């Protein structure tokens, strides 16, 4: 056996041993492949694939429970989908299996239907943060994915990010969590939460692995109506090459003033300041920039997201698949009432109610339509700040304001909270406000990444880097730069 195969097997064994020793406590994975079959598969792949063929060949990964695969149930951590086995496979899974020859070790825990920020709304019980000995939040909704990576159970993991669901758990768990530009990675076979915001994201311990996974899964998919075309991908590549050459490794960094929020803990603001100082010391230029519409981002997100979710989740009626109650209708004759109130957990029910309220004819114009307008404004705010034009929009007049290559800001308002604190929250709003730093990039559809920053006093804080739409590769470039500071 080659040296490369030896390394792969050795790494796989470490992952499997971490799973067997940690998963029963951390609850990161809700289904685990048998060790023997994983090792057999690693050996097979190692024999067939040389080192040069794919950096991911024989590497292990976990994936969030909302990616469809054909051999295990896809449940979205919901009672509603217990036992549901999809007849088809998500495009990204196929690409990882067939093109990258990566090997999955099992499905990762999550907040039910990707709604939550602490991975507590799950039929499998909370996933825990592996960085701490006392039970702390792993973050959500892709908490299991971030936890599995941080605990060394796999080389990387797939998650989904609708309003921060990859970045926030990555920040809490001290790993890298990348949300690509909207539409670059196929969502075919990924159970929808809110399609105008949903993206597939990657979690790993280093940016290089994220880059390798991203290069495999970022491809045009004719099965996804929102997939970015081949022509636009070519255009983006050309632009990236041009910008890389022009910047020569020195960047103009924006400090978005609206990300300075009262709820930020000192740990976070200190870490942010450290990063900025070091960037400055390295010769990168810093600019304070303002995007006023960010103040409305959170309410906008909590109108649009739940509205789309309420619509998407209408299909869970127990007729064709999934959980079904003993009676078809509730006392007043409304169909599926019992099935849906028994099958969905509390957070999902809350968001469906919120969404349906916003879509009702009385509220629609004042809520949904207004939210769409604010979203548009926010997108224009971002366009005005970035030095480069949005590839899908007309060039805009920037009023001679300073423009920047990237924005650097915190990813969360605090480090991972205690699970007990999270569970005793009185109002769901307490957790919704955690999204304040992540939803702006989701609403704008731009690439955003959370990278772990180890502060001088030993804390791990998620630092968020955002770039113009389609500037994903350079967001990864600057992330590597910052991680090496």
């Amino acid at each position, binding site marked *: 056996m080659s040296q490369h195969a030896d390394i792969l097997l050795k790494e796989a064994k470490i992952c499997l041993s971490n799973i067997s020793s940690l998963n029963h406590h951390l609850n990161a994975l809700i289904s685990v492949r048998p060790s023997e079959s994983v090792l057999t598969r690693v050996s097979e792949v190692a024999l067939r694939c040389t080192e040069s063929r794919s950096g991911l060949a024989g590497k292990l990964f976990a994936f969030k429970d909302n990616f469809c695969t054909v051999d295990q149930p896809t449940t979205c951590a919901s009672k509603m989908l217990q036992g549901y086995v999809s007849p088809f496979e998500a495009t990204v899974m196929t690409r990882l299996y067939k093109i990258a020859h990566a090997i999955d070790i099992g499905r990762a825990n999550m907040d039910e239907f990707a709604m939550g920020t602490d991975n507590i709304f799950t039929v499998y019980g909370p996933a825990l943060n592996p960085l701490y000995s006392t039970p702390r939040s792993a973050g959500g909704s892709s908490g299991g994915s971030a936890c599995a990576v941080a605990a060394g159970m796999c080389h990387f993991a797939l998650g989904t990010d609708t309003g921060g669901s990859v970045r926030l758990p990555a920040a809490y768990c001290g790993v890298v969590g990348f949300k690509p530009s909207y539409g670059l990675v196929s*969502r075919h076979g990924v*159970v*929808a939460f809110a399609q105008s915001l949903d993206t597939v994201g990657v979690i790993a311990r280093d940016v290089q692995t994220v880059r390798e996974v991203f290069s495999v899964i970022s491809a045009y998919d004719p099965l996804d109506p929102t997939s970015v075309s081949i022509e636009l991908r070519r255009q983006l590549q050309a632009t990236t090459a041009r910008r890389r050459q022009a910047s020569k490794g020195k960047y103009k960094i924006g400090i978005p003033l609206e990300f300075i929020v009262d709820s930020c803990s000192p740990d976070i603001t200190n870490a942010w300041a450290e990063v900025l100082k070091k960037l400055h010391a390295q010769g990168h230029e810093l600019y304070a920039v303002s995007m006023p519409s960010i103040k409305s981002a959170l309410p906008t997100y909590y109108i649009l997201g739940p509205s789309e979710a309420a619509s998407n*989740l209408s299909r869970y009626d127990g007729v064709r698949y999934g959980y079904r109650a003993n009676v078809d209708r509730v006392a007043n004759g409304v169909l599926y009432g019992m099935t849906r109130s028994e099958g969905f957990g509390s957070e999902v029910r809350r968001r469906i109610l919120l969404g349906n309220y916003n*879509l009702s004819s009385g509220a629609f114009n004042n809520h949904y339509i207004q939210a769409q307008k604010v979203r548009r404004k926010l997108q224009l705010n971002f366009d005005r700040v970035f030095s480069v034009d949005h590839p899908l929009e007309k060039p805009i007049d920037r009023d001679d304001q300073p423009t920047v290559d990237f924005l650097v800001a915190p990813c969360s308002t605090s480090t991972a909270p205690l699970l007990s604190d999270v569970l005793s929250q009185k109002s769901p709003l307490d957790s919704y406000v955690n999204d304040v730093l992540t939803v702006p990039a989701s609403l704008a559809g731009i690439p955003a990444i959370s990278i772990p920053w180890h502060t001088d006093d030993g804390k791990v804080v998620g630092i968020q880097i955002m770039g113009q739409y389609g500037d994903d590769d350079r967001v990864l470039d600057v992330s590597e730069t910052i991680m090496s500071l």
Partner: protein
Amino acid sequence: MRIYVRVRVLGTRNLAVFRDARRWASTNAKDSYEGLKCGVEIHLQLDTKTKLFSNSRTSFQATPNDHVSYFDLALPGSQPILNKHAVLLALKAATALNCKIHRRSMFDRKHYFYADQPAGYQITQYYHAIASDGVLWLQRRDGISSRDKLGIRITQLQIEQDTGKSVYEIDSDKTYIDFNRTNHPLIEIVTAPDMKTPQEAAAFVHKLQILMKHLGVSTGEFQSGAIRVDVNVSTNGGKRCEIKNLASINDIIYSIRAEYSRQLNQVSEGRAIESVTLGWDGHNISVQREKEGSLEYRYIPDPELPPLLLSEDIIRKTRENQPKLPDELIDELTAAPHSLNLANAQTLLSYGLVDYYYGIYKILEEADIKGKNAANWIINDILGIVPVGEEKLLPSVVTPSRLADLIIAQKQKTITILTVSEIIAMNVIKYFLQNQGDHRATAEVIDQYQLTAMGDSNILEAICSNVLEEHSDLVELVVSGKKPSAIKFFIGMVMKNGKGRFNPQDSEATLKRILTEQHPEYANSQK
């Protein structure tokens, strides 16, 4: 009620032909409908091979749940991919209805829970439809009696998905669901309340059916559910009431009439007319749902379907490639040199046989035979023997040149058994219809039928009857006994017309039998 999903074979249904416009155009035309205003909402199934947002096939009589894809069933993780052909058909329809075409339209979701609506919503175009502001002109010949010309305004034309079918079993608490129809492409056409009598509403729907069938947009058949009609009715500016799911032209006429009376009665009893949804069972109107306005569909722009963008080019090409429309064709057919009567022109059109007629017309004219003969042949002779619903196969089976050859053969008397030429001609046509793999020329098949005709007693009978009919004066002399020997003349004529294929004994026996049947007194003269 419990809802079950289970496969069940539905019985096949017969397709019936369109009703002729003439049959209802005169229905109670003289009744007064003062103050009546009707608008219609029509759902038309587009005649595409695959569904609106998936690549499963469209079907009508297939085994239930045989043509169903992941998206049709709203499986988690499935996504819609728009069928471009459906968009092109909608564009054709909108162009023919003189609509304003919107270069940017959007898809929206309309939510309601029902077992045959798997996603819990229907994808439709609510906020920004593909087309609006059109008009379809009705003429007197379309069945409107009070006005020469009447424009029915089209307020909106939108693309949307069909639902599945719920099948209720009698004496059972089970409902079966067939998802074959789920996601079949539809267009919904909504008119302004421009129709002021039931006949005008019927004339509009009928004209639309013919137009859409002519364009290949939809089969337009009521029987298969390819067209579904809702009518809204108001009187004297009162509230609108909607009659749902009318299944024939007659139902449209009679239900509007009934609803008009109901509303007048309501008012005369001093009660206000409430906006309600009504059902029609073929005889009676009944209120199905009160307060139309209270339904909450929670419309939302579909977040995963990009806007539908049409290029100026495709809009222009659709307009330029539009075939001649029914009105123009009828004008042509009823004018010289064709000068067909309106009914024949409409029949050719409604079966999609105008081009067929023109093809035969041209060949006949080149052979110095009056081309318009083709119309009688098609309508009177051939349509009667073509299986119902298979009319559109006719031009490819009995091709224009085949039928033209047959008509020419008959006119030029190359079908030699003269008086039975039509029988043979019909047999040849039947033969072609039943043996679609046979590519022989018409003349060869005629020969085959001439041969089998030899000695055929039906044919002998036809020749004899014909001879007797042509010489009724002589028949009189034979029957009355004044000149019995004249029977020999008849035998001679039969021998001649039959080209000697029948012997004199058989001929005489057949002649005498026919004479006896038609003239009982002849039997006496024989004794």
